[in-house]
């Protein structure tokens, strides 16, 4: 990055968005360059260097590009700009602000600033002249929407610095110098509210990354109760199309207990992003009473946008997440879908005529996925604060077959597995998370077990495992009943099956489109699970198996009415009493 003169080059080959450029100077891997096309500058990234030939992937359509056009290399990798004003914005995969672009259609070579550099912010210093600081330390704070946005020592700085001067409280533009730092060899660094960072390199600047230990509440029962996500944890949602991946992700983005949400819409449908644009400014975050959009940032690189930028979009999203984590905030990062990102890698690898791995994906796919997931996590910062990135990606397995490279590579690294099942989706049992195949490794963490016992109720883990067990036994007897017939098995089998159905209908299934049922606070989840388990452990008296089905249908129906009612409202209590009465009809004393 030190060269004074930038390298330039000439286009010598074009295969779709792979453009080969002959360079006249040094070129580095992943360096950004701009290729000229009749006055339009198109951004591209170097993905392979062979002698003086740089293979670049262009983030735009190359229609009309000719051999002999010129290119300029920028001397740095793909970077994002970090600073106040990221929240509530809609960016494309390269952090261009979609809202400030002109016209209805995306124009080639139109790059817009991520920020309004002239926007003024109320700055409060958090450090004073004379303080010794390193990269990532907090210098001051501005209010961005409702969060205290920390202005930090730029992450690119290496070594210790002394604050020579820092501005007092006041209103400054994002591009104003707010502090001057002096390095160990007396060099001076001017710090503004903005800094740049290359997206493919993780932002460090924390002390350590302990194992996640806190529950990340999502309001989705099958996650919180059965397969809890930990704050700073990782998870993934594979599922065939139509199994409700996107509805589940949207539910998470609306309800999860996070300070901010970053959504990377990576190669998915544009209308799904539009849904967020449209609804989030209206919807309220039940925890803070603020509009959901205030805590949401969208990185939209939908399936019809340039493929190469799709790959960049997940890194852009992760880098923004890391920036906010360094402020001590809880970030939830959602990527829909990581398979599209893998496919973008495959398309380029294919054009470069690399030897393919399984299903024509590049051989290093598992390594790329695992180092990406590793960027999430809970971190302790130098000043004692803690921040986290919880990452949940969706995977769209080809043909719904979970034995494909992207799913398998992801399964090795993600700690929570929310498998969506076609069968459950077909029978409209939503969210269609398979209760038997799915898991949360965090349930095995003593740290989290302790947290659950303390914050929900002592012995909570045993209750969860008990419910899982009942579900498993229910599935086993269901198969038996199917083989032997209703009257070929003891009544007890029917009871076992129907008890598992109670858990299924009342705990696992949840109506994402009902105002009340859509989100269940953990206290309510505790109450419902205990109640359901009580039913499961009650001995009932039946003279014949024919009476079992209608009886349990009644129980389920009343439970469902409870789920639809305001918690502990008059209706809720009425249904609970009704439930009690039904149980007593057949309860063995």
């Amino acid at each position, binding site marked *: 990055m030190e060269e004074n003169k930038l390298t330039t080059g000439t286009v010598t080959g074009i295969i779709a968005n792979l453009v080969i450029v002959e360079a006249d100077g040094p070129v580095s891997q992943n360096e950004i360059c701009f290729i000229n096309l009749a006055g339009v500058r198109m951004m591209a990234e170097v993905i392979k260097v062979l002698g003086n030939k740089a293979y670049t992937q262009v983030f735009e359509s190359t229609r009309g590009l000719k*051999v002999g056009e010129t290119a300029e290399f920028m001397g740095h990798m793909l970077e994002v700009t970090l600073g106040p004003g990221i929240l509530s914005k809609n960016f494309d995969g390269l952090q261009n602000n979609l809202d400030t672009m002109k016209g209805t259609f995306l124009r080639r070579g139109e790059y817009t600033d991520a920020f309004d550099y002239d926007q003024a912010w109320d700055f409060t210093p958090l450090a004073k002249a004379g303080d010794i600081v390193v990269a990532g330390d907090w210098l001051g704070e501005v209010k961005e929407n409702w969060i205290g946005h920390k202005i930090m020592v730029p992450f690119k700085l290496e070594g210790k610095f002394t604050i020579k001067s820092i501005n007092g409280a006041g209103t400054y533009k994002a591009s104003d110098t707010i502090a001057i730092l002096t390095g160990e060899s007396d060099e001076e660094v001017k710090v503004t509210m903005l800094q740049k960072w290359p997206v493919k390199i993780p932002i460090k600047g924390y002390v350590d990354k302990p194992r996640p230990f806190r529950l990340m509440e999502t309001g989705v029962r099958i996650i919180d109760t059965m397969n809890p996500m930990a704050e700073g944890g990782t998870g993934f949602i594979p599922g065939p199309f*139509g199994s409700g991946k996107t509805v589940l992700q949207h539910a998470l983005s609306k309800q999860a207990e996070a300070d901010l949400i970053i959504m990377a819409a990576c190669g998915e449908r544009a209308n799904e992003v539009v849904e967020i644009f449209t609804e989030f400014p209206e919807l309220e975050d039940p925890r803070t009473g603020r509009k959901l959009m205030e805590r949401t940032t969208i990185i939209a690189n939908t399936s019809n946008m340039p493929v190469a930028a799709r790959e960049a979009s997940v890194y852009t999203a992760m880098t923004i997440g890391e920036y906010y984590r360094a402020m001590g905030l809880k970030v939830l990062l959602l990527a829909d879908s990581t398979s599209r990102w893998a496919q973008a890698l495959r398309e380029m690898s294919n054009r470069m005529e690399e030897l393919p791995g399984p299903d024509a994906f590049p051989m290093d796919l598992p390594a790329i996925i695992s180092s990406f997931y590793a960027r999430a996590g809970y971190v302790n910062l130098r000043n004692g604060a803690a921040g986290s990135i919880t990452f949940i990606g969706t995977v769209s397995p*080809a043909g719904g077959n979970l034995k494909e490279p992207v799913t398998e590579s992801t399964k090795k690294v993600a700690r929570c597995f929310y498998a969506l099942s076609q069968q459950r989706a*077909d029978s409209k049992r939503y969210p269609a998370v398979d209760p038997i195949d799915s898991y949360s490794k965090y349930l095995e963490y003593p740290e989290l077990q302790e947290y659950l016992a303390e914050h929900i109720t002592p012995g909570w883990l045993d209750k969860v495992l008990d419910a899982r067990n009942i579900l498993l036994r229910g599935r086993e007897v269901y198969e038996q009943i199917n083989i032997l*017939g209703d009257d070929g098995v003891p009544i007890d089998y029917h009871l076992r099956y129907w008890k598992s159905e109670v858990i299924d209908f009342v705990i696992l299934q949840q109506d994402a489109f009902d105002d009340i049922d859509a989100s269940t606070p953990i206290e309510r989840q505790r109450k419902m699970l205990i109640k359901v388990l009580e039913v499961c452990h009650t001995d009932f008296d039946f003279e014949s198996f024919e009476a079992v089905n209608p009886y349990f249908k009644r129980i*389920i129906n009343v439970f469902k009415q409870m789920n639809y009612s305001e918690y502990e409202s008059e209706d809720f209590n009425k249904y609970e009493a009704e439930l009690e009465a039904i149980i007593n009809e057949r309860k063995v004393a």
Partner: protein
Amino acid sequence: MQTSGFKKIYTKVTQITKATCSIQATGIGYDELATVNGRLAQVVKIQGNIVTLQIFSGTEGIPNNAEVIFTGKPPALHVSDELAGRFFDAYGDPIDGGPDVQGELREIGGPSVNPVRRKQPSELIATGIAGIDLNNTLVTGQKIPFFADPDQPFNQVMAMVALRAKADKIILGGMGLTNDDYLYYKQVFDNAGALDRIISFVNTTENPPVERLLVPDMALTAAEYFAFDKKQTVLVLLTDMTLYADALSIVSNRMDQIPSKDSMPGSLYSDLAKIYEKAVQFPEGGSITIIAVTTLSGGDITHAIPDNTGYITEGQLFLRRDSDIGKVIVDPFRSLSRLKQLVIGTQTRADHPQVMNAAVRLYADAANAKTKLENGFDLTDYDERTLAFAKDYSNDLLAIDVNIDTTAMLDKAWELFGKHFTKAEVGIKQEFVDQYWPKD
């Protein structure tokens, strides 16, 4: 295709394969069109001074001294109101004997809409078919395919939907359409007196397969003209996208690309998405809705074509012959319209979502009962009732010959619930049960 100005003619063909030829040339733009001995071709690869051209109609009979003329332009279509009522081939040239269309020449396969400039689809499309309106409601700006085996009547259903949908323009993109089916569409639209609203771009089985690759972009360029420039509601029918994908695989194979799943090119997802994502609702009023057909082989939806399609489109519709009633129905289990949540219960009656789900759930119970019956087990009273319900539901609601409005569909569903089940078995929110449960 007229050529303007002085065009250099090249005659040094260095390589010929079944679909492509390479020549030495300079100053050529990527994606540019050319003619090779009069046949239309497009630049697909440039390496140094070697330009590879994909010849749409195939390379049969092309000699290595063929005359190659570059046009300097990517494929384009003349757009204006004159398009209405006309039939074109894959290149946008008239095949109905009429005059050439005058108007602005617009590049096909143009840029995509900025996602923040889209509007959330919000207008219900009523088709009168309960399998669609009740269970899988369509919305303007949506993209949805029929997944169907070749023997199913998808062309009839699609024509029916198109005519009932009250669109300002219906654009038919026919790829590998048999001549009989092409004439069928022409006749149906003619009989309905709708010919002036129809624009067709047709590649029949008689034309070379690679030409098909131009059809969706031609159709959608015309669609964008009417939807964006003229603010009209446009319905685009694409049939059959499986044949389109097959043409993609032919080309990628000829270009020595490494195939991924099912011999399809690795870029299949992006290639299909570029087409389907043209479906849009513009805030200024116009919209493009895409209804496509993806034929399956033996109902296999895990094949790369339907599989990638399913991830792109906003749902899919399955047709199935129900042997119990002897009619074709829209399969309630496998069909899905993702955008239905935007309109059901708001533009339709409030009980719509719950009635829809309850009916499908009970229909699923019937399917279980049927399995039991086939396995030779005794049925419970409940099983018997679900079977009776399924038959009525199939006949009165799911069959494609039903043509009633949504409120009538809901009333019918309640009637069937009341006839066969208790309130607890149906399990719908109490307030709706109180309001709509049939009183006897």
